[in-house]
């Protein structure tokens, strides 16, 4: 199918997008749901079960996030604006590295993290199994479909979705030569000029898994022959793309495309007919947090309309929200025309992790 220009993402389009997501059917371990000890209070314009006064007394929030620097800082900025008494600090690293870090710390008895955001469901499941997440049912969780939260709910939720297609530099690639589908990225003319993400990236894992499913094991072996350059963040990918250091990127995230286009970058986005790969971005409060009330407050904030709006409109984020009553995005495309590619079987997906890491690292020379 030919790629089209983009218009708005309407609320309806998002609802439809949400509807195409496969059901998550994971057998979760039997954990007693904590009864709500008190009724939720209203703070600003959302509901929370956290003790806001206590949270402000705690005065701090430590946030571990996979997002790039500006994005993470952006999320913290949003929370700080609403709760100035809570001083935020963050650590950012790509999902794989972030997860190793928090596991290493916990195994040594260090519990310094309040809230964790990951770009991959696989480590999130693992963390839930390990009892790493705090079980906290937010009063805002009513606005989310069951599929967009942990099972049982209360461990983590989908704070957004990050879709990616292909992007290229318009000065280097004439419109007629432009790639149209996923298979086009295997073209030998991209050798040495194509970029992707590092193995620690959740989105990259999803792309690997999905395209392998669609096109077979040989797909990525062909890709490896192009000797792609791998980077940590979408910002780096688009930075290089806009300057011509790379001609094309195999994993062009839509939020980054919007951001760079608004700055005047000469880039173009392609939504392949087979669909855009997408990964959920999951947030959860961490067990044994140093500032538990602040952690809960953040989760409620992030889940709320207010927080979601921030996530959607901050130029460094531009997440697509899965909240059922999410407001429309300021600019965007109608995703209804495209499929979003998600793993059907998250169990199988998680099991493939080791294979992915070996193949991807090997491709990059490590």
């Amino acid at each position: 199918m030919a790629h089209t220009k983009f218009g708005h993402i309407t609320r309806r389009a998002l609802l439809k997008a949400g509807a195409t997501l496969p059901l998550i059917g994971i057998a979760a371990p039997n954990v007693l749901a904590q009864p709500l000890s008190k009724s939720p209070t209203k703070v600003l314009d959302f509901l929370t079960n956290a003790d806001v006064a206590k949270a402000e007394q705690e005065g701090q929030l430590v946030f571990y996030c996979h997002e790039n620097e500006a994005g993470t800082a952006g999320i913290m900025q949003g929370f700080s604006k609403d709760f100035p008494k809570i001083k935020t600090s963050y650590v950012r690293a790509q999902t794989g590295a972030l997860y190793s870090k928090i596991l290493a710390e916990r195994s040594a008895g260090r519990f310094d993290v309040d809230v964790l955001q990951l770009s991959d469901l696989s480590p999130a499941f693992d963390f839930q199994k390990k009892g790493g997440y705090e079980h906290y049912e937010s009063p805002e969780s009513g606005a989310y479909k069951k599929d967009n939260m942990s099972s049982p709910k209360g461990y983590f939720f989908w704070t957004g979705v990050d879709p990616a297609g292909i992007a290229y530099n318009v000065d280097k690639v004439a419109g007629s030569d432009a790639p149209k589908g996923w298979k086009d990225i295997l073209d030998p003319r991209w050798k040495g000029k194509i970029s992707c993400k590092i193995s620690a990236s959740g989105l990259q894992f999803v792309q690997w898994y999905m395209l392998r499913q669609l096109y077979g094991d040989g797909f990525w072996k062909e890709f490896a022959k192009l000797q792609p350059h791998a980077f940590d963040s979408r910002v780096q990918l688009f930075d290089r793309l806009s300057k011509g250091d790379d001609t094309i990127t195999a994993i062009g995230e839509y939020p980054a495309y919007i951001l760079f286009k608004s700055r005047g970058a000469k880039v173009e986005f392609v939504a392949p007919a087979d669909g855009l790969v997408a990964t959920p971005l999951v947030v959860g409060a961490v067990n044994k947090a140093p500032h538990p009330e602040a952690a809960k407050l953040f989760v409620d904030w992030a889940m709320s309309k207010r927080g979601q709006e921030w996530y959607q409109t901050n130029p460094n984020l531009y997440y697509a929200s899965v909240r059922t009553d999410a407001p429309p995005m300021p600019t965007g495309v109608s995703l209804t025309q495209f499929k979003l590619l998600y793993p059907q079987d998250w169990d199988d997906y998680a099991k493939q992790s080791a294979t992915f890491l070996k193949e991807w690292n090997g491709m990059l020379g490590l």
Partner: protein
Amino acid sequence: MSAAVSSTEFFSAPKIAGYGVAAVAAVLVLYPVFFLLQAALDVGDPQTRPPTAYGLDNFEALLNYPQIMLNTLSVSFAATLMALVIGFIMAWILTRTNVPGRLLFEQLMAVPYYLTPLLGALAWSMLGSPESGFINQFWRALGGSGHVIDINTPYGIAWVMALFEGSVAFVMIGAVMKSMDPALEEASQVIGASRLRTMLRVTLPLVIPGVLGAAIFVFAEMLGSFAVALVLGTPNRYYVITTAIYQLIQQYPPRIQIAAAMGTSLFAVMFLMLFLYRRIVTAGSYVTITGKAFRPRVADVGRLRYLLFGVCLFYLAVSVVLPIATLLFASVQKIAVAFPTADNFTLDNFRSAMSMNAAGSALTNSLILAFATATIGIGLMGLLAWLIYRSRLPGAGLIEYVVMFPQAVPRLVFAFGMMWAWLVFPIPIYGTLWLLLIAYLTVFLPLGVRTIAGVMLQVDKSLEECAQMCGASWAFRMRTVSIPLLVPGLVAAWLLLFIASVRELGASILLMGPHSKVITPAIVESWFSTASELTATLALIQTLVVAAAVAVLVVVTRRVSTHLVN
């Protein structure tokens, strides 16, 4: 700094101070190395600690990465060669010819080092990338095709390494030239040899042993280089051992064991190099300051001076002016190009920068940490220098080995060992500034002790012995004679430690926690996940703030030092 300490006094004050500080140094240095070796030999399940099985499998696995070893050696070799050439030329120009502004240039030669190789790499990446590099854009604007330089190649990496990490070569070769007796050359010229012949037959052979020593030392430093290879090499999948270790640790799951094996092998090579260096240069001391300093004969090179002046200016332009100008140019653009249109200019980058870790908390942390490192450092290292070079206590030679040991371990590898060592330490310092403080004090031991020892050895022993003969106890004469005489040197060492601390990258990048961000690693982290314009802005802000801090400190220390001596 007295001479012989009585053997009949068992618990004398100097002994307690000396052995106490030696014990501290030993723990600081050896504890992480133990953990590094343990991880390298761990062949059991990586997730369980302590290790369940030991073996050499990890070292065997290294054979799967011959390219990385080769890359490390070749890039270090090229960088050393370039650094030596640059260092030799500049040393010759600045110590042997009457080029105008000699003294000023000599001071300025240190500036690239202070700017940090990271900044140099960022700037040169913007200058020399084959597609987006400004130089290449100029080239194409002038009608050329393709690109004229590609900074992302091994040669490009070596070039930037030599420019920004090679000032050690200049200092060492300059010292060698200064310690040469000019009478030796004059004898040659009196006999009738031309200047060139004198240079080749007299100067060069005399200078070669020192240059060889410098070569080995610089090579060891280049082996441990990290920032430049990270920024310029990693995007092109060109890894050296240090960047490979970093990548391996960042993977999920982190491949600690093989990273430790790589680190250990690098450490072994560096150790060997430095061992060779000691054999060639001295009879065992790292203090490169020789007793007698000659005044080298400065040759009048006539009109050649202006050409040489140009060479000096060119060097400064390429290593200081151009990089900073590039970063400035990039920081005020939305998307940095060589020929921006009017609407490409913006101050947004500065606005964003202020809200990021790297600008706010990281700067403050770095300055506080630098202050603490320098202050505690001169105390610790002063005592160690005294212990090793003046006290004549038994075992002092062994302590010198321990103190100089961190020289042989690349900072990243050292921090790797520290990461594990201090993670399991009962006192919760992991992730705090305390851990960074300990790391800095450890990795700066060779630098600090060497600098203070140099100053210390210039103080005539008889000044202290005379105080002894007047009846002064060790503490009294330390306070009234030794320390006041050392003050100018200690102040210089303090400043050196301050600057080294602020520019530190290799150790800090592994040991930072959410509450303990420091500048240089924060900029690297931002480079990973930020647009290059924003990173350029951060680097600029960092440089400006540090330069301002250093300027203030230089003024203050100058005043303090004259006041104390008075």
